């Protein structure tokens, strides 16, 4: 079970290969990769995103969310990688991988990790377009997505 914060891009295939190497107890591997789009929600061309974060708290929150996923589902392993700093359009931002004996747990845990990460991990995106830089506003749909997991 790993949580990683880094500036450099990551390789989804290499991460999955490392997680599954030598294991035969895992029947399901679910991956989610968030990628930087080349358009803002309003349709403007986006050059890059810059992700600001709260050092220390980000690691604590990601670890807490991951521990909660492990408590709720029977996972063989899980990995969360989140980048910070400047990220160009087309580059990966975040990776969630869940491994479980069966697919239901792997799918649900991956969705849970992403929904909670978006609303509780202290990251802030700034968009860079030809007009300059502007902070991305939080979406009510993200709060609703996280709320559905509340017991």
């Amino acid at each position, binding site marked *: 079970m790993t949580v990683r914060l880094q500036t450099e891009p990551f390789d989804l295939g290499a991460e999955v290969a490392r997680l599954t190497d030598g294991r035969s107890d895992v029947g399901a591997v679910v991956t989610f990769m968030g990628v930087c789009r080349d358009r803002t929600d309003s349709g403007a061309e986006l050059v890059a995103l810059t992700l*600001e974060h709260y050092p220390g708290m980000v690691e604590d929150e990601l670890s807490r969310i991951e521990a909660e996923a492990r408590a709720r589902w029977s996972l063989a392993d899980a990995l969360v990688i989140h980048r910070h700093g400047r990220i160009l359009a087309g580059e990966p931002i975040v990776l969630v991988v869940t491994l479980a004996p069966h697919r239901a747990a792997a799918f649900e845990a991956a969705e849970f990790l992403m929904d909670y990460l978006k609303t509780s991990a202290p990251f802030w995106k700034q968009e860079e377009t030809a007009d300059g830089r502007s902070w991305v506003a939080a979406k009510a749909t993200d709060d609703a997505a996280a709320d559905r997991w509340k017991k």
Partner: protein
Amino acid sequence: MKLLYFAWVRERVGRAEEEAEAPAGVSTVAELIEWLRGRGPEYEHAFEAGPAIRAAIDKRHARADAPIAGAREIAFFPPMTGG
């Protein structure tokens, strides 16, 4: 205690962090925000969004009514937009 600001809260306040001692009677996150707003136009501008501003005490999310007694570090920031 140490105060930290992130994203547009940091830009509006004009600094990333500072040391501050809140006066007696300021005992919750909401009261601390009210006190900060009185410190100058840059703070007023940063905190005018009111409840939309989130807070963390010693790197844990804190609600507006959370007590600040004993806090070493209090951070203020907009709703999060990671992922």
